[in-house]
């Protein structure tokens, strides 16, 4: 073999190995269906599973609006197309009724369905992979004891190349570090780390994503965008003008409202509804861990304020009087009797991006499906025009201490309107 041939042979061999490796990664065997769950479904295990599943927020994605819990069908809009979540009730035909525990564990650890096809990473297996076997078993027991619902999967709306699932193998190569995490101590912050990084998969939303939809590890917890909402940085909680205390984080996560910082909105709201159901110590652990992540304030050069800033603030103050002040004005009942914070203090007004302020004004906060929670705000998308929204946001921003005016406000408002029919 001459050198040239050798090289060719080498490339060929490498290619074969590559293909082989690829096939090994992309093609997974099916796991045989089981007639009934192969884990003993004791009430204690099911109860533990309920807690795990709540911490994992499974119901949030696996329930369509108005649909049955865990039956899937929720559209997930990604930059690449729309995915529909799947049915994880124990229905035999359309759900996970035929899944053995091993199949369930493999899905959670590797993102592989029982029949061997690869799952899209919108399903956060890169985080769930860190969950212990014990907790996975409990989650399995809980899910397998739900009422089976017949709900066939909806077709995903993706461009052709992405419909080819084996390509996900490359993605996994880059982003999947298969767990579980080695056992950690019982200290709250350690338990918190396990919950935040594993089950809670907080960084799926709170870390910026790269071009192919993987989390940018170097910017972990520095904030992301999900469903047009800002998921704020979780490493700046102590750097806020009113630094978050552990107690406020716990209140916020459990009730959707922190007395000093405002209300959970957008995709965060259902998360808080779930965390309202788990033992308080779990949420305390999450808070304790988050507080270990804190970094000094990342300052950004304040942009030059737009030219008509003063008129804009005046106009915004007027809109505020007609549309907002009954609830949020100084001395309003909400701030008096109900003890709500001034909007100037809310992270939506204080944060680095106007996104959440604009989103909240446009879409409001829906009534909780069930009476008893106290956060609600009517939507203003059909009321205020772009300029009025921008004006009122600029006015609110001007009331926040030491906050530079946002630039590009008009563009942001217009963009969010176009994006959200």
């Amino acid at each position: 073999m001459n050198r040239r041939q050798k090289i060719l042979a080498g490339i060929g061999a490498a290619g074969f190995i590559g293909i082989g490796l690829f096939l090994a990664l992309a093609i997974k065997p099916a796991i045989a269906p089981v007639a009934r769950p192969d884990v003993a479904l004791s009430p204690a295990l099911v109860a533990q599973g309920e807690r795990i599943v709540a911490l994992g927020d499974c119901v949030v994605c696996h329930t369509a609006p108005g649909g049955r819990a865990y039956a899937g069908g929720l559209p997930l809009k990604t930059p690449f197309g729309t995915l529909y979540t799947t049915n994880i009730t124990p229905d035999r035909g359309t759900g996970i009724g035929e899944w053995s525990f091993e199949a369930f564990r493999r899905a959670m650890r590797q993102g592989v369905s029982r029949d061997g096809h690869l799952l899209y990473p919108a399903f956060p297996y890169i985080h769930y992979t860190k969950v212990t076997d014990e907790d996975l078993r409990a989650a399995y027991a809980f899910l397998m004891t739900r009422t089976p619902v017949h709900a066939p999967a909806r077709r995903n709306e993706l461009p052709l190349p992405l419909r080819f699932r084996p390509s996900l193998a490359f993605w996994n190569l880059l982003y999947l570090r298969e767990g579980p995490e080695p056992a950690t101590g019982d200290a709250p912050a350690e338990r918190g780390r396990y919950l935040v990084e594993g089950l809670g998969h907080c960084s799926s939303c709170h870390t910026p994503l790269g071009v192919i939809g993987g989390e940018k590890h170097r910017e972990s917890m520095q904030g992301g965008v999900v469903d047009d909402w800002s998921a704020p940085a979780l490493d700046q909680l102590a750097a806020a003008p009113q630094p978050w205390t552990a107690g406020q984080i716990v209140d916020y996560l459990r009730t959707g409202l922190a007395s000093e910082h405002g209300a959970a909105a957008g995709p965060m709201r259902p998360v808080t509804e779930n965390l309202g159901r788990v033992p308080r110590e779990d949420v305390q652990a999450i808070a304790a861990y988050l507080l270990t992540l804190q970094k000094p304030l990342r300052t950004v050069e304040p942009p030059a304020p737009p030219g008509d800033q003063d008129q804009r603030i005046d106009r915004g103050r007027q809109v505020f009087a007609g549309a907002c002040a009954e609830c949020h004005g100084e001395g309003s009942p909400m701030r008096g009797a109900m003890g709500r914070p001034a909007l100037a203090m809310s992270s939506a007004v204080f944060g680095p991006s106007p996104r959440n302020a604009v989103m909240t004004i446009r879409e409001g906060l829906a009534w909780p499906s069930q009476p008893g929670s106290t956060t609600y705000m009517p939507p203003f998308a059909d009321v205020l025009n772009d300029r009025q929204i921008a004006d009122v946001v600029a006015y609110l921003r001007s009331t926040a201490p030491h906050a530079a005016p946002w630039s590009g406000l008009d563009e942001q408002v217009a963009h969010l309107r176009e994006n959200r029919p």
Partner: protein
Amino acid sequence: MIELHVNGEAHRLDVAPETPLLYVLRDDLKLNGAKFGCGMGQCGACTVLVDGRPVFSCLFPVSSVGARPVRTVESLGTVERPGPLQKAFIDHQAVQCGYCIAGMIMRAQALLETVAHPSEQQIREHMSPNLCRCGTHMRILAAIREVAAQGRLPGAGPQKVSA
């Protein structure tokens, strides 16, 4: 001066631009349909249609209306010639005190102008912003259901009025 198009008529009004539409409708145009209930967008007593959509007029700065047409319950019919929903509410006696009812009718009107045969769940979800304290819900639903069964209600015709 603010120009406002209400129930097919144009008005020029000397009001502060931030005044919530509710007060303009009630006090300046002397329309009784939209009611003050909470002023916070929580009860729907003040519901009117702006450009065909149900809105809380109590939180709607009149300057935000622009050229969009406003419709109140007065536009749907009269005691002598009630519109389809008004008639159904009378037929079902879907009133106790009636304070919430004009808002209910307007919210239902918006649904029935856009959806031909809404399901029960759709009707209930759509109506959920509006509160009734008397507990007239069963009859309100029955009245809406009856009109819904007849097919889509015609809208107000050409929507835009030029400013």
